[in-house]
Structure formats: C-alpha cells, structure tokens
C-alpha cells in the first residue's frame, strides 16, 4: 500500500467576501485576481509546504501536489516550483505530481528539464503524473482544447523519449517540433521516474493508461462509478494480455481525523466551505456552462461512469451536501477508531494499491491539518497498512503494474527501474 497526502492548497481569504458562505456571487472564471493579497498568499504557500514536511514525518509515503490555473481553489499553478522545494526540504517521501497538465505546454522540453531536475535534487523521489486538465487550464494557457488529447499523447511520447534516449535527436511531430533535443539534465531514476495517470472523466484516458500499463488514480469520485470505471481499465488490460491488480489503481478521497467525534465533524464540514467549493449553497456560485462545453475538450460520447457525477460543475461531489458525502464515504471523518473501519470499507470496495488522503482543504486551518496529520501518523496509517496487507493491496512500488510480479522477487535495488519502465 502506498499512502499519500493531498490538499489543493486553497487561497483562503475570508475578508475577500468571496469564500466561506458569505453570499457574494461567484461564477467560475469571473473572480478577478485584483483581490489577491500577496502577504496572505505567501503565508499560505509556506503553510502548505510545512504541512507536507510534517506529513512526511508522520509516515506518509507520498506528498501529492496538483495543478490548476487561474482559480482560487488551488494555488498550485506553478506546481513544479512547489515540487522543487519539496525535493530539497523533505528526505524520504515520494513527490507525486498528479499531475502536470501536458497539453497546455507549448514547449514540453521545459517539462522534461524541470521534472528531471526535481528527480535529481530529490535523489529519485519524483513520481510524475499527467493530466489533460480541466477546461479552465486550456482557457488559462490558451491551449486548443480540440487538440488536447493529441497534444497530451505527443507530449508524453516526447518527454519519455527525451528522458530515455541519448541526445541529440530531432522531433518533428504534429504539435511539437525540435531540431535539437539534448537536455543537460537527465532523470535520477532509470530509465525515468514512475508515472501515474489521475483522472475522472475521459474513457480515452483510462484506456490509454491501461495500454501503457500506467497506474490510474481516480480523483474524488463516488465509489460505485469508480469501481465501474476501474473495470474499463481491467478489460483493456485483458485485451493487452495482462491482468490489472491493486498496483494499477489508486483512489483519492477526503479523509479527516480529529481528537473527538464532535471536533472531527465540525472540522470536516470545512471541506465544503471556503474556496475549495465556491459552488455550494451559501456562496451562490455558478458553474460556467461555457467551460463545461469548451469545444472539443473531451469526447462527448466517450466518457466514464464517474463523469456523469463529476461534470455538473468542477466536480460532482463538491456540489453535494456534506451529509451526502459522509453517507457514501466520499468524506470520511472521525477519530482514528471510527475512521479506520470506514477506510477499510473503501479499500475493500475498490481494492486500490495507492490511496491519497485529501485533507486540510476548504476552510480548514493549519492547526486542523496538523492535528489530523499527527493522528494519522500515530494510529491511522499503521492500521491502514495492516488492512492493506490483509487484503493484498500492493502498491505499484511493490508489484510491477506492467507484469503483476512482485519487485522483491527480482534483483534487489531494481524496483524503481522496473516501476518506471514504460509499457509501450
């Protein structure tokens, strides 16, 4: 079992009047950065880095970061900068980027170089992840949505080649062209950092992940459609001649642990308050229908079961009430004693080899997050590892997602190398 910690790093500014059920109307992409407070922003960036350091101390295997643009609910637009800092200020945990938005890069050689640099400085702790991004990302960086999927695939192939094949070489693609590819930084991990593919909506993406034998991480979706979507991966794997197991699947969802049941509920309610959820009742937020219909962004027919509950605005769960989310385990909160059996339920239901606990978000304070991280480290993570062992939930760092074989059966020290092998 691989256990990661995640928060979207929301821009928490109650005085702006926009966040935290203050009644000021929000329509997606209409909040001007005129309200941005640099002092507050600076404090928040540092707070979120501090929390990652503590998450590592408390025993998390992975420190997960994500990337969104032009939006207050996630400050991680320059996610590689945050990852670079983690590379130096942490020591053990993997730095998991779920993920870089490939298609919006007009020059993906920058990505080749930045990620390899993170892998260098962290001494081989980078786990790369690729996403196609939401419509917001394509709009922010003015990347053509109708070519999003083509650019995703071409950028991926280019990055892998630039990481693995000696330069210089030429690349004359449909969307990217280079006459001299010879970056003077190469990944620490050989042949390259392991890759995960996070997603929610696209059937094409999960099939692509299964064909590449890249673990697929479902982001904060309801359990049953998640299981159905994993079936799409499993069916593709069978077509490709291998059997997908827990090592091929990951799941991110909201988990908060606290000292008492009362406090846990009070704090967990903050998941649906604040900038992480500008569309909830009280904030009077409105999804931007033009973003949902950005032309050509995703196939209108080739979506996943999870997409039906995720496209109402920025995420289906997020527009649901706290009670609804608690009732179907998409939010789990409580003391360690009550949280552990609920996590067991999710693990039994989805059988993921990787999980990411989404915490410290919405209107939660630094103290809220630190209490939860401490209790997770003291009680929850050890229990989850035991459950995972009992259920046979191996991570992609224990069992090769390409072959289904345990790494420790192979030559010692080769785990990273094998985990990183692309599944051409």
């Amino acid at each position, binding site marked *: 079992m691989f256990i990661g910690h995640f928060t979207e790093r929301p821009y928490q500014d109650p005085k702006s009047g926009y966040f935290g059920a203050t009644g000021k109307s929000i329509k997606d*992409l209409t909040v001007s950065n005129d309200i941005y407070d640099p002092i507050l922003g600076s404090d928040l960036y540092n707070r979120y880095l501090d929390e990652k350091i503590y998450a590592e101390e408390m025993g998390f295997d992975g420190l997960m970061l994500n990337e969104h643009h032009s939006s207050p609910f996630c400050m991680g637009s320059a996610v590689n900068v945050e990852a670079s800092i983690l590379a130096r200020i942490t020591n053990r945990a993997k730095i998991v980027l779920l993920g870089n938005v490939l298609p919006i890069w007009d020059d993906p050689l920058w990505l080749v170089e930045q990620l390899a640099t993170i892998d260098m400085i962290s001494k081989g702790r980078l786990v790369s992840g690729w996403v196609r991004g939401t419509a917001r990302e394509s*709009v922010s960086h*003015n990347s*053509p*949505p*109708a*070519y999003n999927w083509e650019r995703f695939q071409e950028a991926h192939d280019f990055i892998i080649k630039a990481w693995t094949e000696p330069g210089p070489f030429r690349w004359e693609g449909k969307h990217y062209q280079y006459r001299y590819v010879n970056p003077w930084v190469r990944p620490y991990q050989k042949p390259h950092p392991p890759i995960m593919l996070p997603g929610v909506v696209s059937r094409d993406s999960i099939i692509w992940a299964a064909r590449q034998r890249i673990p697929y991480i479902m982001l904060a979706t309801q359990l049953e459609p998640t299981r159905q979507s994993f079936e799409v991966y499993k069916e593709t794997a069978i077509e490709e001649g291998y059997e997908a197991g827990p090592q091929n699947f990951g799941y991110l969802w909201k988990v908060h642990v606290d000292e008492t049941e009362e406090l846990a509920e009070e704090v967990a309610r903050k998941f649906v308050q604040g900038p992480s959820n500008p569309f909830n009742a009280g904030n009077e937020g409105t999804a931007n*229908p*033009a973003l949902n*219909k*950005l*032309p*050509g962004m995703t196939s*209108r027919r080739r979506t996943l079961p999870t997409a039906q509950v995720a496209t109402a605005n920025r995420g289906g769960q997020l527009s649901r009430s706290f009670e609804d989310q608690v009732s179907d385990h998409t939010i789990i909160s409580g003391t360690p004693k009550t949280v552990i059996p609920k996590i067991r339920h999710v693990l039994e239901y989805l059988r993921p080899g990787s999980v990411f606990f989404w915490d410290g978000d919405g209107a939660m304070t630094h103290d809220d997050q630190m209490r939860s991280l401490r209790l997770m480290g003291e009680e929850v993570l050890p229990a989850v590892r035991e459950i995972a062992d009992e259920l046979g939930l191996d991570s992609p760092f224990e069992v090769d997602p390409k072959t289904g074989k345990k790494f420790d059966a192979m030559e010692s020290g080769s785990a990273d190398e094998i985990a990183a092998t692309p599944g051409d």
Partner: protein
Amino acid sequence: MAGEISKFEEQEIMIPEGKLQMRIAGEGEPLLLLHGELGFPGWMKYHRTLSEQYRVMAPSHPGYDGSDRLDWAMHVSDLAGVYLQVLDDLELSGIKMVGFSMGGWLAAEMAAMDPGKFSKLVLVGPMGVKPEKGEIYDLFLNVATEFLEESFVDPNLVEEYGIIRPDEPSPEQEESWEVAREQSSRLAWKPFMYNPTLPYLLRRLKTLQTLIISGKQDSIVPLDSLRIYNESIPGSSLSLIDQSGHRPEIEKPEDFLKLVTNFLK
C-alpha cells in the same frame, strides 16, 4: 423548415479524404454561399430569394454538419485550399461568392489565393482580421445559444430567429452546434478568429469587385475589422445595415437582399 426541403437538392461531393455535403437550388450563374462558425443555419429566406436568380451552392464545410472532418486541416486557409480544389474539379470559374462571419473569412482567404477564379465577392460580418479597436466576441467562452442571442439587436423582431435559435433546441441541434464549435476551434482557436497576414494578402484583389456588409450594431465582429478589410481590398465598398447585429441576412433580410442582389447583378 420541413416543407422547404424540396426546394434544394442535396448532393455529396467526394474530396480526397471524405465527402462534402452540398445543397443546390435554382438555375443560372453559380453563387457560392459559405456558412459561419456554427455550420449551415437552415434553408433561410435569403437562400430562397437568391436561388430565384442564381444556382445557389451552399456546402457544409469539412467538419461541419454532414461533411467529413479533414484531420490535416488546421487553419481556415487549409479549407480555402480544399474549396479551390472542389471548384477546380467542378470546372467552375468566374464565380460569385458570399461568405458569412467565419465563412466570410474563408471566402476572403479563397479570393486572396486565387482572385481570378471569382467575379464578385461579398463578405458579411467577416471574421478573419484582427481589429485595432475592440475584440472579436469570444464564442468559445460562451455557449452557442448565448452567442446567437448576442448576434441580434432584437431577437423579438426577427422572423427567422426561432429557426436558428429554437426556444428549446433539440438534442440534434445541440449536437450540431457542438460539432461546429469544435471544428471552428480546430481552425481558429489561436490566434482567435483571425489570420494576422490576411490584410496583406488581400491587397491582391485589385480587380475583384468586393462588397463588405455588416449590421451597424454588430457586437460580434468589431466594425474596425471591416474597416481594415475595406482598406486592404482595393476598390471594395462597405455597407452597414442599421438596426442589425451580426446576422443582417437574418435580422434584416430585405435590406440585405437588396444590397446583395444589386451588387451581384
């Protein structure tokens, strides 16, 4: 609309990578009508009137409506090249051509590539040129119905409004808009709805009589774009139709048809 289907004949024209949906009506000189960014709008009054005098040819561009998408075509000038090949194959020359909005841009590209092929050119609220003042309306950051609403001064006064913007669009209509928006975005996402070199290339239209028309209250394409068109095309003229937005052919069909039929004579 159903009763008027018999008024045009639908043909499929084969092009190297697929088929092109073409509607043909009337007798006489060929008149090529090029639709805009949302695809073929339906067989409207202006089609019917023009087909009384001309052999109206109203294709759906590759990637719109029933015409196959050409994956290699990434710019409006690529479609222009495709249409010039089609006209070559049909052995047509001295053609009169009217382009609407993004179809006006397409017509301008075609004319700039091969001015000798055409005898008259009408550009109606053409996209394709970057205005120095104002910006072209961002139809990709607004849904199709909003864009259509924004295209008229007063939809309540427009007889054919319900045809192009039904109160409750059918799923087929919604799908047709999304297909068209996707194709338009493939051709003109960035730069958005213009070709920076087009004004320079249009200088070549020295002998092609050109009329540029727009609604005086067009809130989609700034009048400044039309000014640049007018200054770039030698001998062109610009006519504005009052109390009309971006779709004068639908908002003020009588005024529009009077201008166009006089010019095409």
